[in-house]
């Protein structure tokens, strides 16, 4: 079974600073997707960034980037120049490529941004 582990229940960062959220996963598959989703207090889950496992290049989206280490099964999210609006729950998620499309989430990391 695929599992996703987020070892940091809570993190905090000063506005304009950089923070890294950790995620590890366990799978025997070779082709899969990894995602970071953000869930603000309004509760609607939105995609932050995605990474295809077959791509060696780390995905980036503006201030958000990932460090994808396939051999180590690690997928961390770096938020640069943190803004107050980044405060939210962040969930790491895994999905097998070309399979049943089952999407599995980690327990989440609550990010607080201090002014």
């Amino acid at each position, binding site marked *: 079974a695929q599992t996703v582990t987020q070892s940091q229940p809570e993190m905090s960062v000063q506005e304009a600073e950089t923070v890294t959220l950790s995620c590890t996963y366990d799978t025997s598959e070779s082709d899969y997707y990894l995602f970071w989703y953000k869930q603000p207090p309004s509760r*609607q*889950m939105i995609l932050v960034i995605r990474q295809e496992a077959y791509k060696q290049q780390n995905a980036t989206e503006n201030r958000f980037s990932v460090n994808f280490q396939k051999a180590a099964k690690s997928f961390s999210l770096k938020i640069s120049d943190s803004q107050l609006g980044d405060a939210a*729950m962040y*969930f790491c998620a895994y999905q097998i490529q*070309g399979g049943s*499309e089952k*999407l599995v*989430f980690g*327990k*989440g990391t609550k990010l607080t941004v201090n002014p």
Partner: protein
Amino acid sequence: DAMVIQNPRYQVTQFGKPVTLSCSQTLNHNVMYWYQQKSSQAPKLLFHYYDKDFNNEADTPDNFQSRRPNTSFCFLDIRSPGLGDAAMYLCATSRLNTEAFFGQGTRLTVV
């Protein structure tokens, strides 16, 4: 503009009284998911549809059922809600090999 719409946003039901939550999508995605999310916890996958193929999670209680009459609509039926079923229920959709789009959720209260 809403692409995944969940109704109602808030639902109060009595203990043991059947309740149905609905989800519709305008994206024509072939995959639809139902998640249960309790306060400050990860979304827990209940089941999902890949087109008409229904995939039930092994630990989803029998009390929970789902229907997908067409591509656009999916329903979550809770046959006899208990106090432990109070949660936020999230619907999501995706196309093959793409990210999921979520609705705003339905917060279920059981009294």
